[in-house]
């Protein structure tokens, strides 16, 4: 009972921690809310760092090892900060058959990034997803949350070029 009343302090004054706390409160600080909480942390901060993992572990009274285990087990969680822009490529079967490998080659040639990597200037992260369920539009990628279908190498370069132009302007 004592442990339940002892609350771990958030790592900083950042207001985003309140959102994280709200998620934990909604789930009664139960241990099984771990994944939900990590989702909220990642939504709020973009990635999971050591501080946030320790804080979540202490708040939910889950061993830090388990928190680390969970956050590395699931693909959606990332321990690295993402670049300014993100491009998520769908690697589902339909997208693969319809030319995903060529798109990845183009990405590597143009920006020197492989899936899971961020460019050196921190502008662009290339991520992959296991089927976005938009197989009708294959191949599909998500550019900063916007889904673009029927991609070709040209279309891909045009989309990524937009970010560059925008940043230059």
């Amino acid at each position, binding site marked *: 009972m004592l442990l339940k009343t002892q609350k771990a302090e958030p790592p900083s004054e950042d207001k985003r921690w309140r959102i994280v706390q709200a998620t934990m409160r909604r789930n009664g600080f139960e241990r099984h809310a771990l994944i939900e909480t990590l989702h909220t942390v990642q939504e709020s901060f973009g990635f999971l760092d050591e501080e946030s993992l320790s804080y979540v572990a202490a708040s939910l009274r889950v061993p830090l090892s*388990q928190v680390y285990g*969970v956050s*590395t087990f699931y693909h959606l969680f990332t321990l*690295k900060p993402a670049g300014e822009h993100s491009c998520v490529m769908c690697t589902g079967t339909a997208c*693969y058959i319809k030319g995903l490998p060529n798109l990845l080659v183009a990405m*590597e040639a143009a920006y020197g990034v492989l899936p899971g990597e961020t460019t050196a200037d921190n502008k662009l992260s290339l991520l992959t997803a*296991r089927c976005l369920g938009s197989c009708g539009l294959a191949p599909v990628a998500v550019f900063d949350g916007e889904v673009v279908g029927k991609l070709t190498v040209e279309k891909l370069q045009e989309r990524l070029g937009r970010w560059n132009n925008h940043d230059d302007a």
Partner: protein
Amino acid sequence: MMMHDRLEEMALIEEQSRTQFTQQVRVCVAAGCLSSQSDVVKETLEKEVARNGLERACQVKGVGCMGLCAEGPLVSVTTNGEAKSRQVMYRHVTPADAPELAEALVAKKTVKRLQMPEKMPFFDRQVKIVLENSGEIDPERIEEYIAAEGYQGLLTAVTEMTPTEVIDEIVRSGLRGRGGGGYPTGLKWITVAKMDGPVKYVICNADEGDPGAFMDRSVLESDPHRVLEGMAIAGYAVGATEGYIYVRGEYPLAVERLKLAIRQANRLGVLGSKVCGTTFDFNVQIRLGAGAFVCGEETALIASVEGKRGAPRPRPPYPAEYGLWGKPTLINNVETFANVPAILRKGGAWYAAIGTEKSKGTKVFALAGSIQNTGLIEVPMGMTLREIIFDIGGGVPDGQCKAVQTGGPSGGCIPAEFFDTAVDYESLRELGSIMGSGGMIIMDESASMVDVARYFMEFCMTESCGKCVPCRVGTVHMYNLLDRIYKGQGRPRDLAMLEELCEVVRETSLCGLGQTAPNPVLSTLRYFRHEYTDLLAPEAGNGAAPAAKSPAAERPLEAKS
């Protein structure tokens, strides 16, 4: 009987407000069409309708998936008083087309340029049970679901039937698990119902992991209440008061609509405490997945709901005896639950009259790959692959159909010469594939079967949870062998080794992921062995060897962090 009157009244009001309009314009706002900006299409249409002074005569609304995702965004126009088949459908509608469409509405004409043919086998050959409301109702309004006889099945169950009678009805229907396994649903319900103890759980498996499958997503986005109703009926039948829906983190729209649906249903009193005014309580919570394919396996899913890593455990004990937090737990797939309300409403015998001897009812399939009509279909069990691919799917756009892949990474490839097989659980298994959750990837002549096998093995390799050795190590070795063969560096003994490994991994893995991981290899070896052997001897090859490959194509797709 209060709830009965309430539902009737709501349905009546909804019907009246609908008939006030002479025309209904439905815009698909499911994920497929949304990514082609169908939300903007809907907004612009609304504005244009208002600008033309039609807001009292013409209702514009967002609806769920209409099925033909390849032609999206889709818009349908129905005129009240006319037969439903007279509805006009438009394809590839852009916001720029809205003024023209609105003018056509005023003039009661059609826009020929965007119109789809009136008779299309794609629509005519389907039988819709699970998808009956998809593309018809607004998924964000409970009133429309109720006007479409929604929650009638639940109401009948909790007010007029005993739990045993509900289960009997499901048994009579012959419904089998739509997640792919095909285990009789009624039997599962009986097992959970027989367990003692006051606390039981119902879990809906919406962790649709197979690449190339988007049936569950569409159902959740197009008709979320149907799944909730199915879960509540199951809860009543087995004696559970709490339900969880485990949804993939990749489906944010589905999650949003489910949350809204749960709120609406709780407010109305068809979920939550005292369902429909009876003593039965049923609360539903959403649990978000975080991108692990193995969590589709029931014991791994339970671990994930408990907030742990999604590692499976040996069965027995099955979740029916020892599931979530050690309590008896009923786990069914989205589509299975989505069938339940219709069975309760129309009777098990009605459902059992559809389909084949051993596989009853309908099945939703997602058609993708090299096919004209990419999209979502629902057909009675027993339809042949040829009818599905060529009549409904419209065949391969340019080229010959070579094979169809069913069942995702756990399934296999079925070559074109077997396309006259009637689709049911047994027939597909005989062909070395499985029904799976319903993804069908159609491949044309250009697809290399070795590459397909390699793709799926790469998938299983990165998705293996690492708990048991055969799967963790075996998939890596099988991937390496396939990779080597595909690159033309394989030796005959590699093929022998591959076959041996398939056997070992299949027989000794802990869960379904490992046990079925060799299936794509085995089925392609069974039907397309020559493609493997051709690659083994490149100098004797007949052009089947792949063209120069790019560096990225040779690497696993998934990032290793």
